[in-house]
């Protein structure tokens, strides 16, 4: 059984909401990523979304854009991201890792080669922002063949027909983009989210995570009333950037533990 499904099954049994932190691999330094992943797992992360930096992150707001630029400047590449996951798996075999990024670094490696390398490294799911379902048939098949979950986005603008389409393809969970905008924007309308997530849950058989615009324990808590998972990225990335180099992992862990506390309260 895929690690993602196992985690959501346990959470459901315990009536808890999944907490999914996002960090950019290689930011603020190449060395910080592995200890940060361990710290996040220890602080209560149910799934870790690891961002693969790209030169042209079209769906991201300023915080993650800068974060990607820093990671690339430090020399982060897809191969190094996969090596980091493989290293993480040596001591953590329970926490699912989902890679999130853009199509071109995958295209450059070749889809099939990437999927094999990701599976071998211990990746559990892949979310490619610019592979919407209509362009993802081949890629989803490759992922499924190696037991990896293709994770898709849904948006406030997704029509019922599209939600039904994604329902057929989605494995692991779907990621509901809670607002019309880029990552880290600040105009989240929880009532609106609740209405849309309810409609999605009626159609989509996998858990629904909500992200884009969740910045602290309080918003996470509110969103958790309707969502199966909350995804939190920009605020965490900013916290890590503001931390002294030696304390990145510890600060990330402490920050996430606080959100976890608010979520479970």
């Amino acid at each position, binding site marked *: 059984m895929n690690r993602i499904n196992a985690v959501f099954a346990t959470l459901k049994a315990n009536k808890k909401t999944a907490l999914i932190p996002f960090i950019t691999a290689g930011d603020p330094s190449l060395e910080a990523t592995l200890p940060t992943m361990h710290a996040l797992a220890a602080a209560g992360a149910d799934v870790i979304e690891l961002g693969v930096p790209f030169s042209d992150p079209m769906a991201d707001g300023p915080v993650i854009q*800068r974060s990607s630029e820093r990671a690339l400047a430090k020399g982060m590449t897809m191969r190094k991201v996969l090596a980091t996951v493989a290293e993480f798996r040596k001591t953590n075999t329970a926490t699912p890792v989902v890679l999130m990024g853009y*199509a071109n670094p995958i*295209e450059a490696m070749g889809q099939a080669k990437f999927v094999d390398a990701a599976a071998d490294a211990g990746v559990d799911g892949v979310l490619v922002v610019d592979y*919407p379902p*209509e362009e993802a048939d081949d890629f989803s098949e490759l992922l499924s063949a190696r037991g990896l979950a293709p994770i898709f986005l849904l948006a406030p*603008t997704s*029509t019922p027909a*599209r939600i039904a389409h994604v329902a057929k393809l989605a494995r692991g969970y779907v990621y509901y983009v809670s607002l019309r905008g880029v990552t880290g924007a600040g105009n989240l309308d929880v009532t609106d989210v609740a209405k849309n997530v309810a409609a999605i849950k009626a159609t989509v058989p996998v858990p629904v995570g909500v992200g884009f615009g969740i910045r602290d324990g309080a918003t996470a808590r509110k969103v958790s009333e309707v969502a199966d998972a909350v995804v939190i990225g920009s605020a965490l990335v900013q916290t890590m950037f503001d931390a002294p180099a030696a304390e990145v992992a510890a600060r990330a862990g402490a920050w996430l533990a606080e959100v976890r506390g608010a979520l479970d309260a």
Partner: protein
Amino acid sequence: MKLYDLPDARGHFGQYGGTFVAETLIQALDELKAQYAKYQHDPEFKAEFESELKHFVGRPSPVYHAKRWSDMLGGAQIYFKREDLNHTGAHKINNCIGQALLAKRLGKPRVIAETGAGQHGVATATIAARYGLECVIYMGSEDIKRQAQNVYRMKLLGASVVPVESGSKTLKDALNEALRDWVTNVDNTFYIIGTVAGPHPYPMMVRDFQSVIGTECLTQMPELAGRQPDAVLACVGGGSNAMGIFYPYISHENTRLIGVEAAGEGIETGKHSASLTVGVPGVLHGNRTYLLQDADGQIIETHSVSAGLDYPGVGPEHAYLKDIGRAEYVSITDDEALKAFHECCRIEGIIPALESSHAIAYATKLAPTMAKDKILLINLSGRGDKDMHTVSQRSGLSFYCHPECEQGRMAAQAAQSATKPLVRQ
């Protein structure tokens, strides 16, 4: 050649094109596709488009026989399609009118656009003023410095120009930022993409609006030259002026189609924008196409003396035409383009855009190898007024400066020479 009927319903030209965007934009693209399908053949829409092209742009643009230059080169006869004579000075306005007419019909009161050199920004600002639409132009902060005059033109026309500080601070980053704006304001905003790239239906739609260029040539060439050309040449950055003139000629098998990319300081230096010549297929800005990228799939910075060709991708239909061998793609360096620019000024009395100068430069290489009864048709896609600053800098010339400006220049020079010894120590 079998019937050319691309893209397919999903926007694919063979393996290229497509809709590689985040979910948030899919609904807007679906709406655009549906509306474009509805209006594309609508007599009223077509009549309004044609009327605007005639009365606002000044179409049809003439075809001109560059006879003196052809004689000097001693080979094929060179003809120019004079898109430089359009209102706003380039072919860009054709597409902007088409898309702005769609924006009006979709009830979107706000239009946004990306721009590199500023030509597409100026054309968008122009048509937004004419139709009373709010207009926001995204432009890399590096390009804003290089193209101050066009920034001022856009502002005169009532547009807001937003500097983009991310990435390489050039055209590709302006496109990223425009996409981010669109995702955020998709309900009231129409994104007017300036070239035959981006997600479906843009490459098809922009090509269709620009194909007025080639369609006019199909009638004009027999009238003026007695027959269709042996080759059609156009510069290729994103590739909209080239698709505009190539498209109606695709079924004319005896006409070669030659796209000219920017070799910048030379392909071997890595400082160029020749995506079709040395790029590798990948996914960027909503479509699969040839891209300039590193081995890890990161997009690399490009260079060309002409900002309009300075883009790491290219329209997906060009990628397809290259692969099937229907079009050839070559490249011309900055220096070759500048030489052609100056020759065109002196020999024909036409100041061409630096972009178009690339196509002209290749024609001056090709013409002498061909017989005198052969015909080359070049898309002179824009005029060079916008390039005065770049060209004068490269040539070490200074132009007339009014007294106040001259005083400022002297003061700046004096200040600079005063600090020089300090710098040297």
